[in-house]
């Protein structure tokens, strides 16, 4: 199995605080991976490390086995759409495509970009600054796709778009990568945007990877259990209780399954991806100490 992105003990520090710490993950080639986490979790830092904009302070990150800061050969394989989809605002879409050709001598499919933008009805001679947010995001995506990248990294590409533009953007993205064998890693603070499209999931919170794996496997290994009010005793067939909530009479647990059947005392329910993600995020949630506000805890 070829790995598109591989991180080992990866860390990045700004001043004294770690934006990303002890990060280990693998994105196999051909996957469409979602990088999910709240704002400030380190998603952008991770993507910037993967595209070589940042240099790691600890560990290493590899893209198709190579260091992304190791020359332009690696960059040619990566298509990157940064947060807020920046493009030169005084350039027209046509000029941006010309620019891409000048900057990517190795491989540049201008016809592909033109076709995409023509299909989407984006005017070629209007400055990008005068396009709508959705259109500008489409231009940025077209520029990234014209590199014919083996790995496409997108940093919150739809965060600032309205719901209609979001759906359109995700449709064009999925249409584009379905034709090729491009690996995609896209981040969002909203799982709902990605849930239907992705087959691989990375959950990031408070600078650490909380959960990573193929979506179907994650769904298969997690269960919601409802049963009588439980203490802290272990349950047969359960490897780990991710999150527990209790009422007076009963307990609801989100668990990772272990070997063997689960204790029949508990009623088993299938989980949705959202249940799993929220459980892991809540588990890792570290709140600000009320004392920081001068309020008693």
């Amino acid at each position: 199995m070829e790995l598109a992105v591989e991180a080992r003990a990866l860390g990045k520090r700004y001043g004294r605080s770690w934006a990303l710490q002890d990060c280990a993950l693998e994105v196999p080639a051909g996957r469409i991976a979602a990088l999910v986490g709240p704002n400030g979790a380190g998603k952008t830092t991770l993507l910037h490390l993967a595209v070589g904009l940042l240099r790691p302070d600890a560990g290493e990150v590899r893209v198709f086995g190579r260091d992304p800061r190791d020359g332009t050969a690696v960059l040619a394989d990566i298509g990157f759409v940064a947060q807020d989809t920046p493009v030169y605002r005084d350039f027209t879409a046509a000029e941006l495509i010309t620019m891409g050709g000048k900057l990517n001598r190795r491989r540049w499919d201008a016809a592909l970009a033109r076709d995409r933008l023509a299909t989407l009805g984006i005017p070629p001679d209007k400055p990008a600054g005068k396009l709508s947010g959705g259109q500008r995001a489409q231009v940025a995506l077209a520029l990234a796709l014209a590199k014919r990248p083996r790995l496409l990294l997108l940093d919150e590409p739809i965060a600032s778009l309205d719901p209609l533009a979001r759906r359109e953007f995700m449709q064009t993205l999925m249409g584009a990568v379905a034709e090729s064998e491009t690996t995609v890693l896209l981040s969002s603070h909203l799982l709902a945007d990605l849930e239907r499209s992705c087959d691989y999931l990375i959950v990031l919170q408070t600078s650490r990877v909380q959960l990573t794996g193929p979506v179907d496997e994650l769904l298969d290994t997690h269960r919601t259990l409802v049963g009588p009010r439980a203490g802290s005793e272990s349950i047969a067939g359960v490897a780990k209780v991710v999150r527990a909530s209790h009422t007076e009479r009963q307990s609801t647990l989100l668990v990772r399954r272990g070997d063997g059947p689960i204790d029949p005392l508990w009623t088993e329910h299938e989980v949705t991806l959202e249940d799993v993600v929220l459980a892991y995020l809540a588990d890792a949630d570290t709140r600000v100490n009320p004392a920081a506000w001068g309020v008693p805890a």
Partner: protein
Amino acid sequence: MIWLTWRQHRKQALFTLVALGVLGAIMVPTGLAMHAKYDSLGLAACRAALGSASMITQTEAVARCDGLGHQFQQQFSSLTFVAVLFVILPVLVGVFFGAPLVAREVEQGTHRLVWTQGVSRLHWALAKFGLIGAITAVLAVGYALGVSWWFQPLVSASTGRLTYISFDVQGIVPIAYTLFALALGVFAGTYWRKVLPAMGIAMVGYAVVRVAVEVFARPRYLPPQTLSFSPSGKQTPNLASGDWVMEQGVRNAAGEMVLPDAQIGPCPAGGCGNGPGDVGPGAYNWLRYQPGDRFWTFQAIETGVFVLLTAALVYFAIRRVRTIA
């Protein structure tokens, strides 16, 4: 990269050309008028006759030549203020070309677009700094030649080209100043990464460095020379020598400064001991100065200083570029 650089900066280039055109339209007629007047007054010939020695014998011809110089200065004194404008011009290059070069990319996030294409950051930086620097250098050479030509009559008619302001807009130093301003702007942009603060830093930094070099370093490039002459003799400092007088005064027989910033003489045969301030017998005029023929040496030293500063700033700017994300 050439295409991208041209596409990004063509508007600036156009504005610059228009501004330089307007400036030229003012400079050429006034410059021609000054040159014509300079020649018609016979200043060129009489200055040439005085030679470049620091001291000459006071004669009627010398006095007449000084008089012509004063007359010329009177007529064109208002234009001296234009020279102050020329002193300021290089900093505009730093503020409007240099500071936004990296800072605007970072401010608009487009550095993440351009640095993730198939061109390395180092290549990007070298191409951009190199192209903009080369164009700036060409403009600066034109500016230096133009201003040197324009300013030449005014300078020769007055205190010479080594003095403040005259030195700063002539010869080769304006080219070095301009490149330094550009590099300072670029560096400020890589450090503060917002266009407006970078512009401010470039402007203030340029002024501070220029003033520091001008006031503290330049008078010390070479040890100054001193000159003493008796008030009763016929010798007088030669205005055509272009000497940069840094300090002058009258010293008494014991060598103590008794009248700073003054000169006495020529005195009657009996001496001039009873003059203003009563300097006593044996007093003499004293000058500390940089000889006018050091002009090109000083130009070379000052150019060297600013070229070195420019190189250092470019080096640090490139280093900064490699850490921005």
